[in-house]
């Protein structure tokens, strides 16, 4: 039937000669437009910083120049790399735990109003409690070292996981829920086939926020509980040590490495998230106008 053939609304295919209609986009230009602004901003910042220290003759002990920081970074790179590894490891474990615990708690809360009311206030507590107050308790309870530092990272990083996952699980459209009810889906099916997949973009956002917090949490844990030994010194201890000794170039070098770690993790997670969502979510699909 011709009507059936007509109702196939496949996208129009290109025909010979259509190529000239496609807007020409220079790749180099696109790259320049993308990378030039941050590079220029970086050069201006470094220049202004160096200029300020030189012009006002600021003591190097109070504010080192970028060159001093770089020198310190190169001089101490072996020690800083070991510290970086330790911090990255603690932060990663803290993040992993906060994903598992955060998503699990959100799922439990999504299944029962009662449990949500019982749990949520204490989940908020993880966000608001001064970590300085409970760090010694954790230290006493688990005996310090990596375990204690991972726990601090977990406490600091877990809340966005809970909040984002819970929001995703409860944002499912009414008609989608009705559809599942129509087909007599049970709670488990509704969770696995509807709520959880719907919540994936929310969970990915949670992971990106929590990844930064886990790094901060690991560093704070190392500042508070790190012992400088092979077992859990990390960047936190480096920072504290450098601050104690007034070696601000070293301190800035350690902070710089921590920041770079955070940026790299953020970019990698963003790319992985786009890969996971590329088929269906607007956030991961590039639209042409």
């Amino acid at each position, binding site marked *: *039937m011709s*009507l*059936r053939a*007509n*109702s*196939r*609304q496949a996208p129009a295919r290109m025909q010979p000669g259509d190529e000239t209609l496609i807007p020409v986009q220079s790749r180099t230009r696109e790259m320049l437009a993308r990378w030039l602004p941050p590079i220029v901003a970086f050069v201006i910042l470094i220049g202004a910083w160096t200029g300020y220290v030189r012009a006002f003759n600021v003591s190097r002990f109070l504010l080192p120049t970028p060159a001093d920081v770089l020198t310190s970074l190169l001089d101490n790179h072996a020690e800083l790399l070991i510290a970086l590894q330790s911090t990255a490891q603690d932060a990663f474990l803290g993040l992993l735990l906060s994903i598992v615990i955060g998503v699990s708690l959100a799922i439990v809360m999504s299944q029962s109003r009662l449990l949500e009311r019982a749990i949520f206030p204490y989940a908020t507590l993880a966000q608001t409690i001064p970590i300085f107050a409970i760090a010694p308790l954790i230290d006493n309870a688990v005996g310090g070292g990596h375990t204690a530092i991972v726990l601090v990272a977990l406490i600091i990083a877990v809340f966005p996981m809970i909040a984002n996952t819970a929001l995703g699980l409860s944002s499912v*459209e009414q*008609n*989608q829920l*009705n*559809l*599942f*009810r*129509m*087909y*007599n*889906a049970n709670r488990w*099916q509704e969770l696995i*086939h*509807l709520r959880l*997949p*719907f919540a*994936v973009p929310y969970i990915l956002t949670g992971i990106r926020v929590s990844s930064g917090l886990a790094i901060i949490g690991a560093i704070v844990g190392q500042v508070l509980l790190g012992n400088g030994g092979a077992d859990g010194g990390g960047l936190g201890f480096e920072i504290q040590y450098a601050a104690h000794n007034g070696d601000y170039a070293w301190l800035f070098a350690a902070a710089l490495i921590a920041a770079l770690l955070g940026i790299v993790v953020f970019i990698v997670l963003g790319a992985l998230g786009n890969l996971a969502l590329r*088929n*269906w*979510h*607007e956030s991961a*699909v590039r639209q042409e106008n």
Partner: protein
Amino acid sequence: MSAVEDRAQPLGAAPGDVEPLVSLQSVSKAYANGTVALRSTSFTVAPGEFVSLVGPSGCGKSTILRIIAGLGPISAGEVRVDGLPPERARRERGDLAFVFQDATLLPWRTVLGNVELPLQLRGVPASQRRAQALETLETVGLAEFAREYPRQLSGGMKMRVSIARALAAKPSLLLMDEPFGALDEMTRGRLNVELLRIVALAGWTVLFVTHNVFEAVFLSSRVLVMSPRPGRIVADMPIDLPYPRDPAIRTGLEFNMIASRVLATLQEG
């Protein structure tokens, strides 16, 4: 398609004293916020009928569908589906399918995955439901789009997938809530024809909500006209046009006279 053909029967056949598939008796429905959506509504639908509910926006048409689907309680009266209270009918027979105004496809599933959903929720093994879903897609002429994701499809195509999903569940009663309301006139007309073809093939009983009188007349064996809120059935109008219906009748005199009669009734409300 054998299981569908088992039930196939001539569309529009509504023998007088067959047990009704759906019956509403003096059904009223008020929401917690005080809105009275339905007041003392009664009608029946016999197996094999294609019944449309037409009425102004907010007259409770969609409420009726949700009640029959067992998705919400009623305030007074009695509803029976297959002789059972709607929620029990849904749970025990699993014989209902619902098509919503938005296609309600799961964006993270392919077309095939979406059509598989009702079978999957019913516990049909993976290979079997895949084969069944593919067969359904072939029936509606969508097989070549099986691997695409909903976001790549136009509104009309999404709705066809949504209808295919309902078809895959092999229901005997199909509830459609303004399924073509968001589509352009051309697409709507095409999908009307296609729907009649599928319904005849599957032997469905259909309850169809629309505010488009011409669509209602073209599709239905009977049109129920509703008054503005709180909704009541004000007229029960059989449409005496033989099935299968040629798309061309929509420009004919007889069709348009029936449509104007329905329209006039609707305006008297």
